[in-house]
């Protein structure tokens, strides 16, 4: 029983971190209606950045976030201006191939510069924290706490500020929002850059927990897409809920199912969700069935 409790709780914590990683994707998807295939590579870039700052400047990944988040914000803005914006008024296929191209580009540049080796940062706290009878890595708890704070903050921005109102209006009906005087292209830019900054933050939190290598994005991007589909696109609390579900399923299955097939987990889970729940947990208008033909 205590094993199961341990598994469920650590699943919830890791799921929260997955949710933070997916929030940028779900925001961009909800507002721009385009999928950033390079999302996983944005995460990879952020993780390499956090690793470099930690190793070269002898700081820790959480302090690195102060530099990484604005850097990713800028990077997102540049990618949006150079690649996403010119593709928006073209056939849907264009943005798919352009971001896919960006993803392959970033992966292979990383492969050339950093080689295929796995890099990680030294443990910082070197101890576990006890919650009742259960023990957790301090990095995991800290990451989860940061995720919760970010979710609440993001919720507040979207609910209460003018910018949030403009974003919600754009999600509901882009053309009507434009007619009401909302600068939709600027909202697109802010959302894309903001989503990239969120991935940067997620990267800093994940760096103490995972190793970084050029194709690290592929595993995580599939999880992020599962979370977006489960939670409903554009929904922050949906992403948190979806993330926690995925975290618990992963934590339990990796303990009870043969670990040799552990790396298959992400892919099989993705396919199962796509086959059986393409409309999400709460049955919203399906994120997965909106796309090229509709």
């Amino acid at each position, binding site marked *: 029983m205590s094993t199961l409790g341990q598994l469920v709780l650590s699943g919830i914590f890791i799921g929260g971190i997955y949710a933070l990683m997916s929030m940028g994707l779900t925001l961009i998807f909800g507002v721009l209606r385009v*999928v950033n295939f390079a999302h996983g590579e944005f995460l990879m870039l952020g993780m390499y950045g956090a690793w470099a700052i930690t190793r070269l400047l002898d700081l820790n990944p959480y302090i690195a976030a102060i530099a990484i988040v604005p850097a990713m914000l800028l990077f997102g803005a540049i990618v949006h201006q150079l*690649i996403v914006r010119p593709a928006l008024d073209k056939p849907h296929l264009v943005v798919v191939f352009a971001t896919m*191209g960006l993803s392959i580009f970033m992966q292979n540049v990383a492969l050339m510069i950093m080689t295929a080796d796995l890099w990680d940062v030294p443990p910082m706290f070197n101890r576990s924290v006890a919650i009742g009878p259960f023990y957790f890595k301090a990095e995991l708890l800290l990451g989860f706490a940061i995720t919760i704070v970010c979710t609440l903050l993001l919720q507040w921005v979207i609910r209460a500020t003018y910018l949030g109102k403009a974003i919600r209006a754009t999600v509901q009906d882009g053309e009507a929002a434009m007619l009401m005087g909302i600068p939709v292209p600027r909202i697109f830019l802010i959302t894309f850059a903001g989503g990239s900054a969120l991935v940067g933050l997620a990267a800093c939190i994940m760096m103490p927990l995972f190793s970084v290598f050029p194709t690290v994005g592929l595993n995580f991007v599939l999880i992020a897409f599962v979370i977006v589909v489960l939670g409903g696109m554009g929904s922050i609390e949906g992403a948190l809920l979806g993330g926690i579900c995925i975290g618990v399923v992963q934590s339990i299955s990796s303990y009870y199912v043969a670990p040799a097939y552990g790396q298959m987990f992400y892919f099989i889970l*993705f*396919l199962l969700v*796509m*086959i059986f729940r393409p409309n999400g947990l709460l049955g919203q208008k399906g994120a997965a069935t909106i796309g*090229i033909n*509709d």
Partner: protein
Amino acid sequence: MSLDVTQQSTGRLALPFLPRRGARVSVLEIFIFIVCLALAIIGLPQTLQDVAVLTFLWAGLALAWNIAGGYAGLISFGHAAFFGIGAYTSTILFVHLGLTPWIGIWCGGALAALFGALLALICARLRGPFFILSTLAAAEVVRIGALNWASLTGGPEGLSIPPVAGMTSMVFASKAAYVAMMLLFLLVVYAITKLLEGSRYGYYLFSVRDDSDAASAAGVNPLTVRTAAMALSAGLTGIGGSLFAQYFLYLDPTFVISPELSFQFGLLAAVGGLGTAIGPVLGSFLITPMSELLRSYLGNQAAGLHLVIYSALLIVVMLYFPGGIAGALTRIVSRKGKL
């Protein structure tokens, strides 16, 4: 200027130009065919023969990918799975059971087609990015499966075909035979594509790609059309995989079923021009020799460089010439026609 009805209704999907329909053969195609034939007949130096083999093979595979990706709108980044299934099927049948690859190739193609049809049925409801990611995930499942099922596939050590030339083993001593074999493969896939373009079934494909709802209202069943297109594309890819195995004589899952290979098929087709017969051929003829020569000059120290170039080229082509090379050519030709 008269408005083209098909282009009006296609919305965001509409490719910037629609392929010239019908099984007509243009001067450009005949010219390319003659050049290819000449290359196959006259003796090329050893290194260039390798380049020719790969150029023809990748062109055929990009065409096969284009049947699903360009004509049916089923963008797949899982075609490496079909390629791998074809390659492994014929090789396993030959190495373990002694069945000649002349038969094994068809078994590989059939199995790959079956797998393609299954994948299309499973992902029938999915659109756009989710379809793409599902194909990617399915291919990864196949790759990891092949890595772990060592008794059948040899696992990470791979599987070799004994390099003894012979007719029954379909292993040839001269590279020229391989050049001819791959050119034949390219011609067959090209002929199938051209026939498809002009046929009733081809029009079903276009209609489902451009507007699935309108197509089903007109009595076309999108599910069967998509499934058949995916099966055809996968089957041809499987046959290409078997041919690759006969040429390379060594298979290992990390190359044969890699996501990079799937991207490569898609990239060649997209750079050349999606939804055209000549596009993928032009794409491969332009890019494959370039990347092969680059690889032989730079050696292994620049792992991934050819993909960096591929992908940068892809981004530029997609943003500025969404119709690819074939689209740009068509535009130039039609502009000249007007003047």
